[in-house]
């Protein structure tokens, strides 16, 4: 190729990269970055109404949180809770913070339900009236003769039988299990009075800045609660600090972010510093160091631009993260180039490129062929990863091929002493061809790996992705035992042809749930606030018939009280104030505000599942998924149970199963390519990667960490790099200096990748730890064994045919 053409190509490549950069700068800030794992799945895998209900519920519940502020006395608890809520309100990060109950709230409930009050019966009252024809008469007597409040009645005038008051009270019991005390929502935690602070996060931007503000708001609120409790004490008596029990997705998120930040600064800084020191030591200059990493940077840039372009402004975060991890393989290309500084020749960038371009191209070719396997499975997410990886690797390769003759034209070779040392290391490295000891060691390694693989266990649980925090979990468990809250991740989706069918199915479901788990969890559901029309009509009829039925409750009451007109006025009230309340009326009134997310509403076009509501499974329900499923089936054909955590876990398992096939197919393709290229030396080229993969999997068995999607990703990386190492060693057989240079490239490539990813073994997040471990062990083995398979020119390995 002429120098003119080379120059033109290099310039063209620079323009392309500039265009990519400009495109990203313009498009990325406004791009929609998808982070839901479900977006990786093929569309048909998920029922759209389940998906919509799930994401609506998630957005609603993820924004809510509850904090119980407990203190030795209710005064201290109230003061601390008020201070906590106040600090949160002032932080400007909240949509709403509730500590004192708004004055309108409970009063509004009274006004809203008054015209419907004789159509509403609590489960206990309904049962009592059905069982005992005297029930209504006795209920009235309790209202008349017990002190106000203890019968549950709201006063004889409006609620003669106490049915309305008890119905209302049982609704708010469904709400949470908190008691209204002195205008605050109160509970008792470990014998201490506690006041609840309920909040909803306000809209917030993406990124860490918004997260920091939120974290600061909660920290500030906790400090305010503490100091208020301290300042409220008049005496020197040592009073305990208020205890905060937190529940809500946001706390997990902030904790994970804080942990990630801590790990980024600790693990990230350590590995970056070590990496820099290592590179500077090995190559004696900042310029070669930069040349080592440049292909990866350019590769990721170009791949992101391509992904954004083909995705129409939409990219998936996971595809980007996985893809750029794989593009890390391209580091080998730059490393091999600059490893020429160890050769016993004056440095010439162009000549070095000519020397290694075949190795680099073979490395690229095998990797691309391997990752092509990602296109063989019909999963859009894996295809995106494949596209990103291949585009990134090709761009990295192009960067080395087109730019390095200029960028790497003038470098300072390492000193003779260092060079000799590298040569001595290469010569001293145990070789398979030299004796049985090395073979035995490798066989032993394989045996150990096999033993580890036999103990492997698969676990796709999505919770492995979160750092587990004991304290937060304890707080949440305690809140769950004190209050009845929706669990957040599990819900029933209740569907019917129309509103009434859905409500009736809900009622059936709630009754079954109460029977299956009598220990207490009352679920929150639309039918709790708006019973089905059929139920309201039958309840109203039950009340009316009880008044005039066999027990003649109305007549007896009138006689007892010496007011004959009473029976007639009761009859009239029961008829007039029993108009069924409708979902539309409820939705139009502020009383429904906290619960509107439960109504998914009617879908256009009708059908058997046209109308849908959501019933979150209370956290206290101990039933497992199978038990819940049975309840759902019993409630009607349109009722399904959705466990979002389980769904994510299933998705991860689905991706993992397919990735196993991808890896097998990819390995097969690569092996075929190696056999074509290297004939009977192919096994030497493939062995380091194979040993690395075996050891990486084995390490999971030894350590007890689970095999999951992320561990497999590490395997994909080991395959790509291990094959590169094998190729570099096989291609550098012509002389000792070339072999030494290849070894330097392998050492530096492996060391830097181990520093970049292998350090994740110190992470507190189990999935990252597994990734780090597989990578550190697998890459380490591939790295250390690759030079063992070096052969000299003319030398052919034993036991193989003579294909070449």
């Amino acid at each position, binding site marked *: 190729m002429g120098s003119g053409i080379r120059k033109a190509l290099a310039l063209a490549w620079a323009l392309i990269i500039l265009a990519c950069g400009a495109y990203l700068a313009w498009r990325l800030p406004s791009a929609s970055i998808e982070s839901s794992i479900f977006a990786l799945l093929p569309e048909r895998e998920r029922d759209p109404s389940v998906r919509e209900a799930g994401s609506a519920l998630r957005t609603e519940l993820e924004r809510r949180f509850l904090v119980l502020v407990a203190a030795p006395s209710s005064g201290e608890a109230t003061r601390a809770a008020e201070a906590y809520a106040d600090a949160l309100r002032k932080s400007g990060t909240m949509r709403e913070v509730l500590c004192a109950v708004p004055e309108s709230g409970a009063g509004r409930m009274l006004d809203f339900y008054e015209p419907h009050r004789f159509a509403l019966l609590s489960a206990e009252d309904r049962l009592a009236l059905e069982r005992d024809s005297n029930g209504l008469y006795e209920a009235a007597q309790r209202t008349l003769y017990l002190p106000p*409040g203890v019968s549950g009645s709201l006063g004889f005038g409006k609620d003669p039988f106490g049915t309305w008051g008890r119905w209302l009270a049982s609704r708010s019991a469904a709400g949470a299990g908190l008691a209204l005390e002195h205008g605050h929502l109160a509970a008792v935690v470990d014998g201490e009075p506690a006041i609840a602070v309920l909040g909803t996060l306000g809209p917030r931007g993406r990124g860490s800045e918004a997260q920091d503000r939120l974290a600061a708001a909660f920290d500030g609120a906790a400090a305010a609660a503490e100091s208020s409790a301290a300042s409220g004490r008049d005496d020197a008596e040592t009073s305990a600090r208020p205890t905060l029990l937190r529940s809500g997705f946001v706390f997990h998120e902030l904790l994970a972010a804080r942990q990630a930040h801590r790990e980024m600064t600790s693990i990230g800084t350590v590995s970056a510093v070590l990496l820099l020191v290592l590179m500077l030591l090995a190559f004696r200059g900042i310029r070669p160091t930069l040349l080592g990493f440049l292909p990866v940077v350019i590769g990721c840039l170009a791949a992101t631009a391509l992904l954004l372009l083909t995705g129409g402004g939409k990219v998936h975060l996971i595809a980007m993260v996985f893809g750029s991890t794989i593009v890390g393989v391209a580091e080998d290309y730059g490393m091999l180039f600059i490893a020429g500084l160890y050769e016993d020749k004056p440095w010439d960038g162009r000549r070095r490129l000519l020397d290694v371009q075949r190795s680099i191209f073979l490395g690229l070719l095998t990797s691309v062929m391997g990752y092509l396997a990602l296109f063989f499975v019909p999963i859009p997410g894996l295809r995106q990863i494949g596209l990103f990886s291949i585009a990134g690797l090709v761009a990295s390769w192009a960067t080395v091929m087109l730019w390095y003759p200029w960028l790497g034209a003038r470098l300072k070779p390492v000193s003779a002493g260092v060079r000799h040392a590298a040569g001595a290391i290469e010569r001293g490295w145990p070789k398979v061809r030299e004796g049985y000891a090395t073979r035995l060691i490798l066989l032993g390694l394989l045996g150990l790996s096999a033993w580890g693989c036999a103990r492997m266990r698969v676990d796709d649980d999505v919770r492995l992705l979160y750092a587990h925090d004991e304290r937060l979990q304890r707080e949440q468990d305690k809140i769950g035992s004190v209050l009845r809250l929706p669990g957040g991740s599990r819900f029933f989706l209740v569907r019917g042809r129309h509103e009434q069918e859905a409500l009736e199915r809900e009622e059936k479901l709630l009754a079954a749930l109460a029977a299956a788990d009598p220990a207490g969890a009352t679920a929150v559901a639309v039918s709790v606030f708006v019973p089905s029309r059929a139920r309201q009509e039958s309840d109203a009829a039950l009340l009316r018939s009880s008044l005039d039925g066999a027990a003649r409750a109305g007549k007896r009451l009138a006689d007892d009280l010496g007011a004959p007109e009473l029976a007639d006025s009761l009859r009239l009230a029961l008829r007039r104030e029993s108009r069924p309340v409708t979902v539309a009326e409820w939705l139009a009134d502020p009383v429904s505000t906290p619960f509107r997310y439960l109504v998914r509403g009617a879908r256009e076009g009708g059908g058997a599942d046209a109308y849908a509501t959501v019933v979150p499974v209370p956290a206290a329900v101990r039933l497992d998924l199978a038990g819940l499923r049975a309840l759902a089936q019993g409630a009607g054909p349109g009722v399904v149970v959705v466990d979002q955590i389980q769904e994510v876990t299933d998705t991860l398992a689905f991706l993992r199963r397919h990735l196993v096939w991808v890896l097998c197919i990819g390995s097969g393709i690569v092996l075929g390519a190696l056999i074509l290229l290297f004939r009977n030396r192919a096994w030497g080229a493939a062995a380091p990667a194979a040993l690395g993969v075996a050891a990486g999997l084995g390490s999971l068995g030894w350590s007890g960490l689970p095999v999951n999607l992320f561990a497999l990703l590490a395997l994909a990386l080991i395959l790509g790099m291990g094959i590169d190492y094998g190729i570099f060693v096989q291609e550098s057989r012509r002389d000792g200096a070339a072999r030494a240079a290849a070894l330097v490239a392998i050492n530096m490539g492996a060391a830097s990748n181990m520093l970049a990813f292998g350090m994740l073994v110190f992470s507190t997040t189990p999935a990252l730890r597994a990734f780090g471990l597989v990578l550190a062990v697998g890459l380490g083995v591939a790295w250390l064994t690759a030079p063992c398979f070096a052969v000299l020119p003319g030398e052919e390995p034993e036991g193989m045919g003579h294909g070449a």
Partner: protein
Amino acid sequence: MKRILAALCLGAALQAAEGQVAAQGQAAQAAPITGRLAAPPVLSGNFVQEKTIVGLKKPLVSRGDFLVVRGKGVIWRTRKPVSAAVSVTPKGIWSLKPSASGLKREAVHQGDLGLAMDMIQKVLSGDPASLAGTFDVKEAGTAAAWSLDLRPLDPVVHRVISSIRLEGGKYVDRVEYAEANGDKTRIGFSAVADSAGELGAWQAAAFGE
């Protein structure tokens, strides 16, 4: 006097009897009469309740007895003209009915509204600090003959209870509830005594033991 307040009020505040000692000390300056109180472990007595209901000419009179056990709660038993019993414990209000196995105990739901009344009972249990926070309190008289007028500050509570008046000397003698709908309830106490007797099986069951 606190013993009587406690007796009177079907007081769930007993749930935090120990914790309230400090609060009482603190509130003593604000409410001198209610401040000098001590709670006996067990207190019992009789009551007469007279309820005037709007629209009914005759007041409804009922009689019965009560039992307060510190840390456990209150049993309130109406005997005439109907029998009806409830217990108020730290865990809620329970309706008590005789049954084949001795006693049937059913929770009376206490939601936001039931709680408005539950709150009043807690207030009456003699936690003066909470009296001041929830009611506008007016005191009159001497330690031997005093009265307290309470008006709910919370508008939601005010929608149900418009005022409460307590009168007494050594003990609380009378309580008057005025409900917002015009109904009035007067309760008078007699034969109040602290006894140290063991709880019977019935009482233990009523407290949920």
